[in-house]
């Protein structure tokens, strides 16, 4: 079992019980498996408001098994690896029922690594894992060299960059005779150099570092590789929340909290959220996960992202409160003093110094009432739905029928004048089996998945003049598509009691047998 970012896979499993959120597990009765390459297998049993996790060799009976290597599993859990990318590119895999597994994300509070500040080892790991990405071919043109970094002390190791033909490859260990070898006695010194806190020449002259082989290559390192910058850009909500609470105690200002004896609970919902409580007494501050029975003040924020925006100065807290997206319980006065009790949160992207000019993102929500005139043709089609009838019109030239009715045949460019009643029953030609539902931007609603959208060849229609509508949700797995002379499942519309002349006067289609 290996550590990544100071975390072992077992740390994540061992803390599951503490991180379990009963409200996120409501109605779940399932066994999940985790197969972590190099670290072993775990089985998670969830039954309504209780859970068990055990290390096991037998993952039989699991509805879903997650497979990943240690690095990716830990990275995703602590927000160091982008979960979507890892999942899309197959670095994290799910076998079995994906939908149910999705619920595990709501079941646990975020894993917060014990180590909150990046240690020397983390920096070293990050530096070398980004080395190839920082390689600048233009700075290395014509070079055919191997550069070995021999870093001693805690977090150290030996790595070699092989540079040839404008390409760079990094391997651990070193060749027999590297072109250039950089020896640094203490990893910490090298981190300082890379972060620009120390200059390399003082290390060399102090004998804390040395260069073997071709020195001129070492002097060119600044051209060969772009400057190392600790990961900043891809901070997710989770990372920010983690970092905010990770730095809360450091940001405590005793002056602003004189005579204060209070517990302040942050209850942050949504992805990346969790519950933390700051215990403030005698000019000291301590942060714990969870909350006491009666905190002096409790700040509830529905969405972690909103809180991040507040902390980064992108949104003001009062608009959140007034929009009902956040609330304060207990003593409101303390909440108003938070700006004095803690110094402003500064994201790591600004290199530890307050940004001179903040980049803002302005948020707007547009809501517009729209009215669309149907015109006589669509009007007739929609009006007929009130009478439980489906009307189409036929092209006098090619015989094509349109669904819904159209003003002209687009292919023949002549008015389609002859009205025809078709259906209402028909056969399915094709069903879109939708697992991923795009939110409807007009209503903000997301359809429950999976659902099916049908292309139905209504009786009386020919060829590809199909009609689109939804299928009764519990029947999606029973639908068979038609093709050529083979007919698909027969379906019939289910009409609404109250009909207003809309496509949803038909609730959906159901199997007709």
């Amino acid at each position, binding site marked *: 079992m290996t550590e990544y970012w100071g975390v072992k896979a077992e740390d994540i499993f061992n803390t599951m019980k503490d991180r379990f959120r009963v409200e996120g597990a409501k109605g779940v009765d399932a066994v999940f498996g985790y197969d972590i390459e190099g670290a072993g297998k775990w089985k998670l049993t969830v039954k309504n408001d209780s859970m068990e996790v055990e290390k096991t060799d037998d993952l039989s009976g699991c509805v879903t098994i997650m497979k990943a290597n240690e690095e990716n599993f830990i990275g995703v859990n602590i927000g160091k690896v982008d979960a979507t990318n890892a999942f*899309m590119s*197959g670095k994290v895999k799910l076998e079995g029922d994906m939908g149910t597994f999705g619920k595990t994300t709501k079941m646990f509070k975020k894993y917060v690594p014990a180590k909150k500040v990046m240690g020397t080892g983390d920096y070293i790991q990050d530096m070398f894992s980004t080395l190839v990405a920082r390689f600048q071919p233009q700075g290395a043109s014509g070079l055919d060299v191997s550069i070995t970094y021999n870093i001693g002390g805690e977090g150290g190791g030996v790595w070699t960059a092989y540079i040839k033909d404008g390409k760079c490859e990094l391997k651990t260990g070193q060749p027999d005779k590297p072109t250039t070898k950089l020896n640094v006695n203490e990893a910490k010194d090298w981190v300082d150099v890379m972060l620009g806190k120390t200059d390399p020449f003082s290390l060399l002259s102090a004998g804390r570092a040395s260069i073997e082989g071709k020195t001129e290559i070492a002097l060119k390192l600044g051209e060969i590789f772009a400057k190392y910058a600790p990961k900043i850009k891809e901070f997710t909500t989770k990372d920010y929340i983690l970092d905010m609470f990770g730095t809360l105690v450091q940001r405590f200002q005793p002056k602003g909290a004189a005579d204060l004896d209070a517990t302040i609970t942050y209850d942050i919902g949504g992805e990346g959220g969790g519950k933390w409580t700051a215990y403030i007494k005698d000019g000291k501050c301590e942060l714990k996960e969870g909350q006491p029975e009666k905190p002096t003040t409790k700040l509830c924020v529905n969405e972690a992202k909103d809180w991040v925006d507040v902390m980064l100065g992108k949104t003001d807290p009062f608009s959140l409160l007034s929009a009902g997206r956040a609330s304060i319980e207990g003593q409101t006065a303390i909440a108003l003093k938070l700006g004095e009790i803690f110094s402003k949160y500064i994201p790591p992207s600004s290199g530890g110094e307050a940004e001179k000019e903040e980049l803002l993102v302005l948020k707007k929500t547009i809501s517009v009432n729209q009215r669309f005139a149907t015109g006589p043709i669509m009007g007739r089609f929609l009006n007929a739905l009130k009478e439980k009838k489906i009307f189409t019109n036929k092209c006098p030239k090619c015989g094509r029928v349109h669904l819904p009715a159209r003003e002209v045949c687009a292919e023949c460019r002549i008015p389609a004048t002859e009205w025809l009643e078709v259906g209402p029953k028909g056969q399915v030609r094709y069903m879109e089996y*939708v697992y*991923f*539902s795009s939110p*409807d931007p007009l209503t903000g609603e997301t359809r429950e998945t999976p659902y099916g959208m049908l292309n139905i060849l209504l009786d009386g229609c020919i060829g590809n003049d*199909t009609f*689109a509508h939804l299928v009764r949700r519990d029947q999606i797995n029973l639908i068979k598509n038609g093709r050529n002379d083979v007919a698909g499942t027969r379906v019939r519309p289910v009409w609404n009691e109250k009909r207003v002349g809309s496509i949803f006067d038909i609730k959906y289609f159901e199997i007709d047998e």
Partner: protein
Amino acid sequence: MSHRKKNRNVGIIGIGQTRFSSHREDVNQPEMIHEAVSAALKDAGLAMKDIDCIVHGNMELFEMVHQPDCWHTLGTGAYGKESFRITTGGTVGATLSCAADNLVASGMYDIVMAIGFEKLQEGHTTGGITNMADPLWFRNLQTGALTGSKAYDMISEFGEERAKKASVMYRIIMDKHAVKNPMAHRAFGLEFEQLDDLVRTSPKLVGDLKLIEMCSQSDGACVVIFAEEKTAKKISKKPVWIRDHITVHREETFILFGYDEKHPVPMTHRFAAENLYKRNNIKEPLEYFDVFEMYDPASWWAVDWIRDFFQLKDDEHLKLVENKEIMIGGKMPINPSGGVIASNPIGATALVRIAEAALQIRGDAGDHQIPTEVKHALASGFGGTMWTVLTMLEKDLNW
């Protein structure tokens, strides 16, 4: 379809792209556009004063900004110049190129700059696409840009295993290309060994369309500068000539399915390709072209469309994919840039195809340059519910 020869020859003399990414919160829209404008001017060795006219386009209302060209004047440099706004859905980038080409060819302007951009993160992509549907009945039914119908078609025709593998094989090849393109948004580092795994485990979106097979949503801009022959030859050492372009639209319809061989559905891609090749006397497009930059929003579509664009029969298109002939170094390299599946700033996307095809002809594509000489390139645009724009680019003025 009547079609006349150009009054004047037109060449591409400048190309600029931003890096494509899911988040460009560090710049606003005009600033982002300006990055590409500056890059293109630098590439051409021109200054803003040299540009006679600007055509500007993106997806209509995807960012909910009406007439964004007004605001963007700060970044486009269009102040005091002739300027047109064009928006034709997914094809907009290709239409920008067609318009710039026509404006120069007509003799109205000597140098025209085409600007395509999108900041999808600032709006709502699915919202935009949903708004495209007929509001009288279809808006609440459609599923955004996602469809499993092409997967269903190909599985019906070639069997489940072969079809699914071909689609993921295509996807992995595109990723192999994207890794070589520093501008690409998504570059995962996929390996061919992952093929079976991805077929099995990538989550399904709609039908057999899987997450890995669908394009991303990106921010970014692309700028291409066009000039008439004499000016182009004077300014640029390596002008790339626009030989011809064709645009084919169908009526707005989301029902594209042809499940009855007695009633074939006319495909705009095949139709456009047929007509373009006929009037340019291209008998064997697969032999003629050296590279193809295809608008490939999803890998199922991409594999299927290879058949349409190259007028292939039966499973010839599948074989091209399976034998990796579409890779850089293969018989018909497709999307050395990684394609749309890797980066999709929609309003810029189709213009990127033309820009990348031109870079290949110039030999300036960097790590994703095709090793052999590129003389003839094809670029496609796709959009609307079934719209096609095809552009032919040439190294030499010899047709």
